[in-house]
């Protein structure tokens, strides 16, 4: 029967649009880890702030999708830099666990500070996209699905371009490779790290706006679960490796979609974290990770 293939293809579409969100958030995790070896647990909450900035732009300022997206990305980029300068920079030479705990603290600060400022009530995005639905041979594709996948792919290509071909991208790669050597070569390490936070946070904000528009609801705690999932995606692809985060995100989205499609929707989150555990056991450096020999 054709309906089985139809169901499978539908799950692929669902998985890709879900996965593009994970991928965008995972990029921020991976970039920050790549450069200062910090798991920035506040990253999901930066996404939440981005979603609220976008919501404010579309409701109060009556903006359309692209300007709202740019505003949200700018707000989150500034927030990301501020967090780095205030909370993480003083701890750059402290133990790793100290910065990790600080990251968790920043995360709670954003979540519950957010509750205080915007109230814990959920908000709904106004309809930003047309409700057009394309029916391709029984497979339903929403206008929103296409925007989501296209926006994330455009942003990923843009990021790739920045990292590969610009001066700041070269600096980022140098700092990530060896911070002290980069410093000796005259690279401004502080600015490079700030730029990394800005770019990562802007990508998270884009994911937040897309999520808000797509699912129509936002609340101050919305960043927790996607944040954790994106972390799984980043580890899956090999944390610190940019293409790995993209692949990890899409892989996780598709897996979740298929687990639900098989009728085990309540096991979906369990499967996501089971994958994390398996990756950590079998290939701790992730799918794209190379085993780096420890320098002595």
């Amino acid at each position: 029967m054709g309906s089985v293939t139809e169901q499978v293809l539908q799950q692929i579409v669902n998985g890709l649009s879900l996965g593009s969100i994970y991928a965008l958030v995972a990029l921020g995790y991976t970039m920050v880890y790549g450069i200062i070896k910090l798991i920035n647990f506040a990253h999901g909450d930066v996404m939440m702030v981005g979603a609220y900035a976008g919501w404010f732009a579309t409701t109060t300022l009556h903006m359309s999708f692209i300007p709202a997206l740019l505003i949200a990305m700018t707000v989150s980029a500034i927030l990301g830099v501020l967090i780095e300068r205030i909370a993480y920079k003083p701890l750059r030479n402290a133990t790793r666990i100290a910065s990790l705990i600080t990251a968790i603290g920043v995360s709670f600060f954003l979540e519950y500070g957010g509750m205080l400022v915007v109230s814990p009530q959920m908000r709904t995005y106004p309809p930003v996209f047309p409700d057009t639905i394309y029916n391709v041979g029984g497979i339903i594709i929403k206008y929103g699905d296409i925007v989501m996948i296209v926006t994330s792919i455009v942003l990923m290509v843009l990021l790739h371009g920045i990292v590969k071909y610009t001066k700041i991208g070269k600096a980022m790669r140098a700092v990530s490779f060896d911070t002290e050597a980069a410093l000796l070569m005259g690279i401004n390490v502080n600015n490079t790290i700030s730029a990394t936070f800005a770019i990562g946070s802007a990508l998270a904000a884009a994911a937040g706006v897309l999520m808000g528009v797509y699912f129509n609801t936002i609340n101050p705690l919305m960043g927790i679960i996607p944040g954790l999932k994106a972390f799984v995606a980043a580890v899956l692809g090999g944390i610190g490796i940019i293409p790995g985060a993209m692949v990890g995100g899409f892989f996780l989205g598709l897996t979740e979609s298929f687990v639900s499609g098989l009728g085990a929707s309540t096991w979906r989150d369990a499967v996501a974290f089971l994958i994390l555990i398996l990756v950590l056991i079998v290939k701790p450096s992730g799918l794209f990770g190379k085993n780096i020999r420890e320098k002595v």
Partner: protein
Amino acid sequence: MRKLFSVATVALLSLSLVTGCGATGGQKSAEVIKVGGNLELSGGAAAFGQYAEKAIKLAFEQQNAKGGVLGKKLEYVSSDNKSDPGESTVASTKLATQDKVVAILGPMTSGNTLAAVQVVTDSKVPLITPTGTSDSVTFENGKVKPWIFRACFIDPFQGQVAANFASDTLKAKKAALFIDQKGDYSKGLATSFEDNFKKSGGEVVATEQYVAGSDLDFRATLVRIKAANPDVVFVPGYYQEVGLIVKQAREMGMKQVFLGGDGWGSPQLVDVAGAAALENTYYVNHGAMDDPGMAQFIKDFQGKYNSEPDTFAALGYDTANLLIKALENAGSTEPEKLRSALETMKGFQGISGELNVDPATHNPVKSAAILQFKEGKSVFMTKVNPK
């Protein structure tokens, strides 16, 4: 050492006895009657609790303007349970032991009410939940919970009304269930829907689950429900998830009737799902806002808050007035007298209908309404009386 310890314990215990007496004595002479509200003011069910609290405050204000109860003014003490069972226990403990309230109103959801049962039973404070509809809230294992009351009908009745509506009015033969895996409320409704739907010759073709509070994307599961091709989909959840489920289902081209319970009763459902997606959906509720009996309340509520009340506000209002009536009948704020006044309540005229408490189960006997969404508004369809 051990002797010293036991002496100290005895001393402490007797001290607490003395202060305990002192507090009760103080309360008697106090000028006000304190009533606690353990409500969902934030979190997933915040819309229910916030509206109910406004209505409770309104009811108390109106009563105080008439001179209060038993010659004393009513004072409302608010406490937020954050839509979380753990916080509900904390809030009840605070209200019962620190604020020394004579009764607690709330919580709105069954799960949060169940979490408060032990605390209020131990401290002998009657609790009335406006909308805790799960069977086990007042009655479990053949025994009534002496200190727990409610102002609403129960889930089995709600599920029965929905099932009969599906098979008799909608002529549905095949139903799918989409249940919140963590919710006592959702599971209770689904069970009674399934039993009653099967009794009238229907068939349940799919049973799927979701996790309220963390799931946003229901499409993967909806693909499965769609493939089972039901006539009607029963979603006994709360507005936030229901809104997303109905919206995503319509986007996927599912044209089936969606049915639900009182958890749908919030204007935010329309914000999330959109008016168009809600066409051809129905839900069971405690009353309808376009019922003429509600008119005065709606006017008063709008006058005070400048916003439209919903059915949760109406039940909050009924709950507050039920307590006031019970205090008047008891003629005292003593826990035991208040408790028996609530237990023997007969012929209470609430705005959501007449209410009689069944002393054996503490369940009120009252009617249910079926509402339909039309252009983003819930419209009263029919009233169903208990059998």
